């Protein structure tokens, strides 16, 4: 048990209260599109894995929904807005926006938004403070968030069926979003 806690500490996610000006509900979908020289899908897949792990490592359930909203949005923002991965970006951006809306709807009125950061070679920092869910709304928020994730996976898999060139890429991203498993690092 202690080892697990230590590992979480070692991951080093730091919660910083009120460091940045909140930009609640900020959508990455509005960011300017990147040129088509964007990296391979595997880079986004790795980003998504790391983002989910990052949100898990926070250790505070109340911030999980908004963390995923923010991180998935950050990955989407790096994707090209045109070309054969535009649908992928759109699906993730929509997921981010909808998760953000869930976090906003059920947010706590008493908990301050917080920034999260993780050091190390795979460092990661949220670009805006995350909103915490009120304890009494947690179940409702989780249910709503599950629906968003389900829809996102479905959208990605549908895109995989219609994409001639990127079917495997769509499936892979859908696999990350829809994965039921947490893979474990050594204890």
């Amino acid at each position, binding site marked *: *048990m*202690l*080892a*697990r*806690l*230590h590992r*979480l500490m*070692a*991951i*080093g996610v730091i919660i910083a209260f009120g460091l940045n000006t909140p930009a609640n509900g900020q959508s990455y979908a509005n960011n300017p599109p990147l040129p088509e020289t964007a990296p*391979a899908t*595997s*880079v986004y*897949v*790795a*980003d998504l*894995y*790391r983002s*989910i*792990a990052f*949100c*898990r490592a*926070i*250790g*505070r*359930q109340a911030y*999980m929904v908004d963390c995923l909203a923010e991180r998935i949005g950050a990955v989407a923002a790096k994707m090209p807005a045109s070309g054969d991965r535009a649908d992928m970006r759109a699906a993730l951006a929509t997921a981010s926006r909808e998760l953000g809306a869930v976090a906003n709807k059920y947010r706590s009125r008493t908990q301050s938004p917080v920034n999260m950061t993780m*050091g*190390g*070679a*795979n*460092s990661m920092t949220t670009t805006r403070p995350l909103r915490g869910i009120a304890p009494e709304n947690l179940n409702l928020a*989780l249910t709503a*968030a*599950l629906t968003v*994730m*389900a829809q*996102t*996976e479905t959208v990605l898999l549908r895109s995989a069926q219609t994409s001639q060139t990127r079917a495997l890429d769509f499936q*892979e991203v859908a696999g990350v*979003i*829809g*994965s*039921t*498993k*947490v*893979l*474990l*690092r*050594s*204890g």
Partner: protein
Amino acid sequence: MFRKAFLLPLTLLFVLIVPFPAMAERVALVIGMGAYEHVVQLKNTINDADAVAAKLEDVGFKVTLATDKTQAELLDIMQAFSFQAETADLALVYYAGHGVEVQGVNYLIPIDANVKSNKDVVRVAISLDDVLKTVESARKMRVVILDSCRNNPFGDLVDTNVTKPEDPSTDNSTRSAGVQGLAPVNPDLGTLVAFAAKGGQVALDGADGHSPYATALMQAFTVPNLEISLMFRQVRDKVLEQTHNLQEPYTYGSLSGTPFYLAGSTGGSIDVASEADPRVAWADIKPEQEQQLRALADGGDTRSMLGLAYIRLNPKETRYNPAEAVEYLTKAAAAGAPDAQFELAKLYEQGTGVDPDAKKALELYEASAAQGFPDAVNDLGFLYYQGGLGLAPDHAKGIDLFRQAADLRHPEAMFNYAALIDDGVIKGKGPEDSAKYLYQALRSGSDAVLKQLTSDPAMFTIKTRQALQKILKSHNFYEGPLDGDFGKTTQGAIKVAFGLQS
């Protein structure tokens, strides 16, 4: 499927802070053979076994005592002990009796062994490899102590293929009778094989009812705060002194990075072995022993370097000094110690005591994994599967590494491999295979695995859950229906299989 995907991380956050009772079971199989039916009987071995067993019980071991057993009896006992060892942190075997090397293989001789030739030894004796197998599943440390290189009881009947020592001080008041000695062994990392006498020497029988080696061991077992590696050094020094340098105990293999204090520690915890975090466990070492560690580290002992590094990585310690830890680990890693390479990789990955350096971290993980260090093989699998430290996701390579680490009985790797089988991404494997790995992961004692299985079993398909229930049933841990429902009954069985009391 996606519902579970999202719930799992959220659920995990809760379960991470719910502690399970600490377990630090230490089990010992103490074997004494004296009343041989076909070869010369030994006088003190039963005394030794009885006394060693009593001392080990005194310091908290669960002891199985086996004296004057036939081969069949001993094999049965070893099988039962092996099952016990699966959920123990430390499994120790002590053997006092005849031992012989035949063409590079060491054999322990049961009382009914009737030997006319080399072939007979293989048939009627028990190989050291078999003994090592009985402890190989212990979770943290495995120790086999052989107080047995006392003679070759079969004389010319057996070609031991061992050179006689230059000065065969094999007077007949000892248990030795001519050609003797056991062959050097090369056990796995985390396994220590201790011989009463190094190759070519005889182990004396002793004049006061116990062998010098057993006497020294019994004294050392009960010294509190004495770390196990230092304990074996003290035993060696004592035996050398008592036998006027005629007999020098010797150890082969290496202990794991986890410190053990057989008689416990007075440094705030009763049983340091129960401390899963090596940073905390090593920090409990007494100042004079830290000095010894430093001396050993200066002499090139990489485990001592690792221990000193762990102490300096404990933020609660006044000795906290990550940069110094990096120095120790760098030295040990450069000497080729895979556990140090792994720990140093983590520091480079996290940026602890050193600037984060993904390339360096990856190189160190690769170097450690190349030596088969299971933690590194699993983490490298993780990095390849999901991508990280500059690696793009490579599922095929990740899966292969998980398989390799699972074959090394790494708990998290067995869980990961089971999870990927269950996801259907590993060709030729099905729910039964997934359940088999899950069961082995449970038995090998990973808190993370236990928590995953008890907090969100629905992450696995019903077929895998049913297959796991079937395995639990076959080991008498579970009596309910094979319905895949992981309710209270199954969860209870999972915890008992893990080693927690029902």
